[in-house]
């Protein structure tokens, strides 16, 4: 009887500890979601407000540049906006995970949606990165000139807005990791 009691006390302690760990897990997830939301919305706004007009007019060179001139950058803005909207909408669900204890099905749903959003965000960020690289370096073999030599601040803007997006990609990977660990931990 004594050993049985000791066992009961031990298992209840273990359950308490795991409850604490999963709560910490859920709170960390909530915080990461908020940080990722800020990253994506900043990227989207930075890219969408690019607008540069050169002060002089030359015969062959275009004198106005904005994000909608390049379709890959438009896709980038849309992808970031969609992902930031998703992150805001998933905050209540993440909050429920902190409070409730039996959250398996909703966690699976959250992992699936997170993976889909990760794919969308990575696609937007990397296609924009390819175009930005081209804008910086140009391509001699195809006679594609680098436009950064004329539009300096435009180039800096579009390069900087990529950073927030890639940080959000990394945070989304962490979020999926946390959800998976929390899923596998349930007794």
């Amino acid at each position, binding site marked *: 009887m004594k050993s049985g009691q000791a066992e009961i006390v031990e298992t209840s302690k273990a359950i308490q500890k795991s409850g604490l760990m999963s709560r910490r897990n859920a709170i960390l997830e909530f915080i990461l979601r908020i940080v990722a939301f800020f990253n994506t919305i900043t990227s989207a706004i930075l890219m969408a407000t690019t607008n540069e007009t050169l002060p002089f007019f030359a015969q062959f060179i275009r004198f106005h*540049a904005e994000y909608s001139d390049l379709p890959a950058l438009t896709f980038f803005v849309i992808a970031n906006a969609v992902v930031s909207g998703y992150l805001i909408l998933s905050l209540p669900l993440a909050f429920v995970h902190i409070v409730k204890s039996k959250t398996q099905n909703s966690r699976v749903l959250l992992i699936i949606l997170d993976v889909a959003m990760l*794919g969308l965000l990575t696609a937007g960020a*990397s296609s924009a990165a*390819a175009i930005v690289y081209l804008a910086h370096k140009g391509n001699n073999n195809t*006679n594609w000139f680098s436009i950064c030599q004329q539009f300096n601040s435009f180039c800096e803007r579009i390069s900087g807005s990529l950073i927030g997006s890639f940080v959000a990609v990394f945070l989304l990977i962490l979020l999926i990791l946390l959800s998976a660990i929390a899923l596998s931990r349930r007794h």
Partner: protein
Amino acid sequence: MAKESTTIDIGEPSTVTKSTSHAVVDEKKKSFVTAAGGGGDKRGLTIFDFLLRLAAIGITIGASSVMFTAEETLPFFTQFLQFQAGYDDFPTFQFFVIAIAIVASYLVLSLPFSIVTIVRPLAVAPRLILLISDTVVLTLTTAAAAAAASIVYLAHNGNTNTNWLPICQQFGDFCQTASTAVVAASISVVFFILLIVISAIALKRH
């Protein structure tokens, strides 16, 4: 009489503990049996996971090799334009070939882990490792496929605002081959998403 009472006293607690331990053992057996029963569904999912991995290996190797061998030499020489196009003229396509090759080798290396999850459907650690590394590789594949896709789009349509001419009008064959490789990589992205979903569902405990 005293002896009887003592035997009764000793007898009772032992039977009480026996019954509770029996109850515990029964419960443990029950939970084990239900877990083993749930292992049946998981086994089906895991076999599907293994088959998906095999298909993804084929597709990624195909995509990488198709892009690697995309080459075209024009039969005539023009004054302003290059008359030869290959994958190494575009840094993005170089990144594509290398990244998809890395993904293919990762998939081959992950086959043993998948086999382990088939053999032991209740093991958590291999599934978790597979899910995490699949997520990282999904990001790499999507990045390579999307970057190559944006360059292929540019090659098809050009861009009037930046004076970038569409090269597909001269190098039609090269464009076609590159587009095929990008489409194959995108299909492998879908496969990876399915793999992660399967791992997540299989991780769920009943």
